[in-house]
């Protein structure tokens, strides 16, 4: 009979908590600022100042209204150097709707369009490349993948076809033992006929290569797998260990970093030969053990913990807090050619962009 020690769970979880009342104050300030902005809009509407779209009673196109985003449901997905996408929830006084946010100026202004799928579906952006975006929408036990090739103006349900991975394909996920991809530009979804190189795998950003991280066995043998579109078959290389894996990142396919949850914090491992050999790097204290990692082409390694965003200039051996992201909340990174993006979700979403992976600017500034 296993131990159902709820008291121990409650006590240890309570002790792990580090009070941060400043975070409450910060959220409150932003909430007041946001509500004040909303009140201003309401007053303007009441006085008939802006009747188009937002009022909802005209024949114009409310689904194309230029407005500030509401609650961000997902991190920003980067289509290209200018085009960002994000699922948001937009509420009026009666009802909330999920909307598909599109920005063509790096997040300075957003256009909210109808999100694909039924109104009460739960959605996630699976992939964005240029104007091609795939959104998974689930309603009950039904999941539909929706594809747009015009930046969210029109959507169609994806129908998968059996075909080999092509050079224009981006991997979306591994379904069972099959790699599922979408072709940038056409939005055609393909299921590769051969067995995927890893089980229970997910893709990771690997520059011009395809990268997968998953298991070789039954939840054992955690590994990464590389392949170059049309050039070489999958190469499977073991990661440092199985337990506690959190993230893997590379900017060039040679310098690869793996992140694990360790005893005293989160442990970084580095490889200088594409994942053939690994050496342990810094152990970063993080009470919550979260954190995506981002390797950039200028050599900087970024690590977003729950309490700070850190950067390393020595290949993950040491990390320093970065002042740009103080009190930013949980960050997520995304990458497009020549652009890095960091974003947060929630009521007060924030977006930072960087062209060199070194200096970041918040947008709108």
């Amino acid at each position, binding site marked *: *009979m*296993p*131990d*159902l*020690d*709820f*008291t*121990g*769970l*409650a*006590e*240890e*979880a*309570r*002790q*792990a*908590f580090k*009070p*941060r*009342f400043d*975070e*409450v*104050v910060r*959220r*409150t300030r932003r*909430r*007041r600022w946001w*509500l004040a902005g909303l009140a201003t809009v309401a007053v303007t509407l009441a006085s008939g100042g802006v009747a188009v779209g937002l009022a909802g009673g005209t024949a114009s196109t409310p689904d194309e209204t230029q407005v500030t985003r509401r609650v961000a*449901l997902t991190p920003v997905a980067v289509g290209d150097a200018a085009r960002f996408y994000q699922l948001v929830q937009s509420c009026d006084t009666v009802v909330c709707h999920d909307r598909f946010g599109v920005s063509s100026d790096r997040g300075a202004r957003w256009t909210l369009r109808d999100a694909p799928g039924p109104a009460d579906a*739960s*959605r*996630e952006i*699976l992939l964005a490349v240029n104007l091609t975006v795939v959104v*998974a929408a*689930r309603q009950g036990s039904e*999941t539909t993948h929706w594809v747009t090739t015009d930046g969210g103006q029109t959507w169609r349900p994806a129908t998968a076809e059996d075909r080999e991975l092509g050079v224009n394909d981006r991997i979306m*996920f*591994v379904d069972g033992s099959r790699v599922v991809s979408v072709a940038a530009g056409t939005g055609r979804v393909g299921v590769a006929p051969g067995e995927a190189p890893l089980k*229970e*795998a*997910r893709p990771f950003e690997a520059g011009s290569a395809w990268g997968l*991280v*998953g298991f070789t066995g039954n*939840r*054992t043998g955690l590994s990464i797998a590389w392949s170059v579109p049309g050039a070489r078959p999958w190469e499977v290389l073991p990661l440092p260990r199985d337990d506690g*894996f*959190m*993230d893997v990142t590379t900017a060039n396919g040679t310098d690869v970093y793996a992140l694990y*949850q360790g005893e005293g*914090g989160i442990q970084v491992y580095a490889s200088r030969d594409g994942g053939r050999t690994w050496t342990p790097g810094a152990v970063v204290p993080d*009470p*919550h*053990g*979260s*954190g995506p990692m981002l390797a950039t082409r200028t050599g900087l390694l970024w690590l977003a913990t*729950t309490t700070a965003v850190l950067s390393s200039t020595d290949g993950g051996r040491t990390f320093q807090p970065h002042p740009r992201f103080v009190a930013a*909340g*949980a960050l997520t990174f995304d990458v497009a050619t020549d652009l890095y993006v960091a974003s947060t979700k*929630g*009521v007060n979403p924030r977006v930072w962009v960087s062209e060199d992976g070194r200096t970041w600017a918040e947008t709108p500034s």
Partner: protein
Amino acid sequence: MDSEADLRAIYLASAGRLVAVLYALTGDYAEAEDAVHEAFARALSRPGQLRRVDSPEAWLRTVAMNIARTRFRRRVLLDRIVHSGRLRPRSVPPISPDRVALADALQELPRVVRECLVLRYVADLTIADVARAQQCSVDAVKSRLLRGRRALAARLDDRLDDKEESRA
């Protein structure tokens, strides 16, 4: 009661307990912290709200749970869609693996049963208070607790067996 100083005192006294409850409910420590911070931010941004309640901690727990229900329903569903059986970065506190296993096993229970167990055993509410919180009878709470404990024990037993098999 609702000034920033007062709320800070309530925060220091109760936020840890609330995070523990939300962690047991969601299985994700960062998300639990986020929901609790959001609940406190709502309290601070609505002056007078806490003055009207008998137990600020109970009110904050309810708000945080509502935030978690709304926010995590999406996440859980989407995890099933997108990450089902696949690797996904998780956020767990630095606590012993047995406790993490218990929190993980709780996530496999139906929401109403999970909430019942967490309110009773982690938040330490009386059975009558749990019944009020869940708007059901005391007998229903007892039944959920019994079912929930049995289901949890079975799940943890399975995990133990799996671990031993993989060692062997």
